[in-house]
C-alpha cells in the first residue's frame, strides 16, 4: 500500500494533526510520501519525500489550485491511497481530488478492520465497514482516531512544486473568534450543558452545579448555536478542547465533534435520559436521569 499524506498549514504553522496521517500510514504499512502547501519555516518531522508548494504564493486555502498541485503529485507518485484529515481543509479538498482521480472516497475513518475502513454512522451510534471498488481511493481521518505513540521524528526530503491553475474562490484571510471570555482549557472542573437542557432558562441549573463544584460551565454546539450560551463556552472541535479533572456532561448526546473536545478529561460523568447515548462510550459514569431533576438535587447535596 502506497499512501500520499496531505498535511495542513494554518497561519504559517504546520498543524499537529499532520501526524495523525503518519500514524495511519504506519498502521497500514508500506511506502508513503507527503504533500503540503506551506513553507520551509515550519516543516514536518517525517522521514520521506515532502512535496512542498509555497503557501505565500498559493494561499493556505485555495481549493482549485491545491487540487491541481496535488493531482500533479498523484500523477508522479501513483499512490494507492490519498489521505487527508477529516477537517475543514480535508473535507473540502478531498472530494475534489477524488472526483478528478476517478476514485472513491471514504470519509471520517476511525479504524481499520481486516482491510476494511470503519466509519461512524448516525452520530456514532453505528459503525460501518466500507471498501472502495476503485483501484485507488481517497480517505479522510477522524481527528484523534489515529495518533503517534511517540514524539514525531525524522527529516523530510523537500521537493518544491509549482502549478498555474486558476482559482475559483478568493480567500480574504482569517477572522479570529471574539477575544476575551473564559479559557476552559485551564479549568479543573467543567459542567457542560447540551441540547437536553431544553430551554435557555435551564442553563442556570448547569451554572449552579458548576459553582457548587467550584468549576466553570461549558456548552455543546446546539446550545451555543441557539444562543443560549456564548461561543467562548463551547467545547468541541470548533470550540475549545478541554482536559479537566472532572467533566460533567448534562443532556449532551455525544456528537463526535463534542467528544473530540473533551474525551481527554480525567473523569467523565454523563447525565442523560438515553441509556444508549453515545456520550456513554467515553463516560466513566453514566447517570440515567432527567438532568432537570438530578442536577439541582446534586447541587443541593454539594451545597449542604
Amino acid at each position: 500500500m502506497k499512501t500520499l499524506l496531505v498535511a495542513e498549514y494554518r497561519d504559517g504553522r504546520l498543524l499537529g494533526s499532520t501526524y495523525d496521517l503518519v500514524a495511519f500510514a504506519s498502521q497500514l504499512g508500506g511506502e508513503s510520501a507527503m504533500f503540503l502547501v506551506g513553507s520551509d519555516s515550519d516543516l514536518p518531522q517525517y522521514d520521506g519525500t515532502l512535496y512542498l508548494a509555497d503557501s505565500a504564493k498559493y494561499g493556505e486555502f485555495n481549493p482549485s489550485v491545491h487540487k491541481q498541485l496535488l493531482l500533479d503529485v498523484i500523477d508522479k507518485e501513483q499512490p494507492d491511497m490519498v489521505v487527508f484529515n477529516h477537517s475543514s481543509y480535508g473535507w473540502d479538498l478531498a472530494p475534489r481530488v477524488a472526483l478528478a482521480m476517478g476514485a472513491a472516497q471514504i470519509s471520517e475513518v476511525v479504524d481499520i478492520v481486516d482491510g476494511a475502513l470503519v466509519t461512524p454512522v448516525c452520530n456514532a451510534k453505528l459503525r460501518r465497514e466500507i471498501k472502495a471498488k476503485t483501484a485507488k481511493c481517497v480517505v479522510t481521518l477522524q481527528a484523534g482516531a489515529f495518533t503517534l505513540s511517540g514524539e514525531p521524528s525524522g527529516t523530510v526530503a523537500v521537493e518544491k512544486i509549482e502549478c498555474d491553475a486558476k482559482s475559483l474562490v478568493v480567500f480574504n484571510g482569517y477572522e479570529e473568534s471574539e477575544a476575551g471570555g473564559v479559557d476552559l482549557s485551564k479549568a479543573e472542573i467543567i459542567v457542560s450543558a447540551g441540547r437536553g437542557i431544553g430551554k435557555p432558562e435551564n442553563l442556570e441549573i448547569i451554572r449552579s452545579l458548576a459553582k457548587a463544584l467550584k468549576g466553570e460551565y461549558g456548552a455543546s454546539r446546539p446550545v451555543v448555536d441557539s444562543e443560549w450560551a456564548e461561543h467562548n463556552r463551547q467545547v468541541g472541535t470548533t470550540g475549545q478542547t478541554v482536559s479537566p479533572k472532572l467533566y460533567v456532561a448534562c443532556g449532551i448526546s455525544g456528537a463526535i465533534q463534542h467528544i473530540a473536545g473533551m474525551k481527554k478529561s480525567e473523569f467523565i460523568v454523563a447525565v442523560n435520559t438515553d441509556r444508549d447515548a453515545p456520550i456513554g462510550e467515553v463516560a466513566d459514569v453514566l447517570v440515567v436521569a432527567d438532568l432537570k431533576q438530578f442536577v439541582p438535587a446534586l447541587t443541593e447535596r454539594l451545597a449542604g
Partner: protein
Amino acid sequence: MKILVCMKQVPDMESKFRINDQGSWYDESDLAWRMNEYDEYSVEQAILLKEQVGEGDLTVLSIGPKRIQETMKKALAMGCDRGVHVNDVKVHEKDPFEIASIIAEFAKDKNFDMIFTGMQSQDRGSGQVGVLVAEMLNLPCITTIVDFAFDNGTVNAKRELEGGVKAKVSAQAPVLVTCQLGLNSPRYPTLPNIMKAKKKELAVVEVGDLLTVESRLETPKISLPEKKSGGLILEGEVGDLVEQLVTLLKERTTVFA
C-alpha cells in the same frame, strides 16, 4: 434568480437503531424521520436569499422513497416554491458519488444561480455530496459556511475552521455553498404556509432517469459499536443516584480534596 436547495430526510438521531437482517444498514422500521439538521439551515438560507433579491424561483430537491415527501412539504411550507422528488427506494445503497451524480444530472441544464446543500448528513456524514455536485458542474464551492452574504452576484461567506477561527472567502455566482449548523435561525412553518404548501408543485422523477454512473463504494458490514468497558451505569431514584455519584467522585477523583 434560480435557486436550488438539496435536502435529505434522515432518522431522528435520538432513535434506538437496530441492524437490518442483511447486516448492511440500519433497520428502517419504527424510526421517526425528519429533515437533516444541516439542511434546515440551507433551506432557510436559500429562502432568505430569495427574499433579499425580491424575486426568483426556489426548488427543493430530495432523493428517497415516498416517505421523504413529508419532509419536502416542510421545506415547501418554509418557503421553497417547488419540489422535485427523485424517487429511489434504494437510496441508502447509493454512495456519495452516485447521489452527487443524480443531483448534477438534474441541475446541469437548469442554470441555477445558487445551489445550497448541508455540509453533511446526520446519518452518513460523508461531507462529500455538495462538493462533488459543484465539481461535476464546474462551479465554485464554499464549504462549511457559518455566514453568507450575497451582493450583486458576489457571494461573501465565512467558513468555519477548527478552534473558533473563520476563513473569509468570496466567489462569483453561480456558486454552491454547503451550510454548517448555526448559519441562521431556521423558521418554523406557519399554519397558513403549511396549507399553501399543499398546493405547490411536487414533481416526481424516477431515479433511473438521472443515474448514469456506478457506485464506487461497498459496505460489507454495519454493526453496533462495542461499549467502552469500565463505564458505570447508574439508574434509579434521583436521591439515591446523587448519593452514589458523590461517593464515586470522592473515591475516584480529587475534586473534593
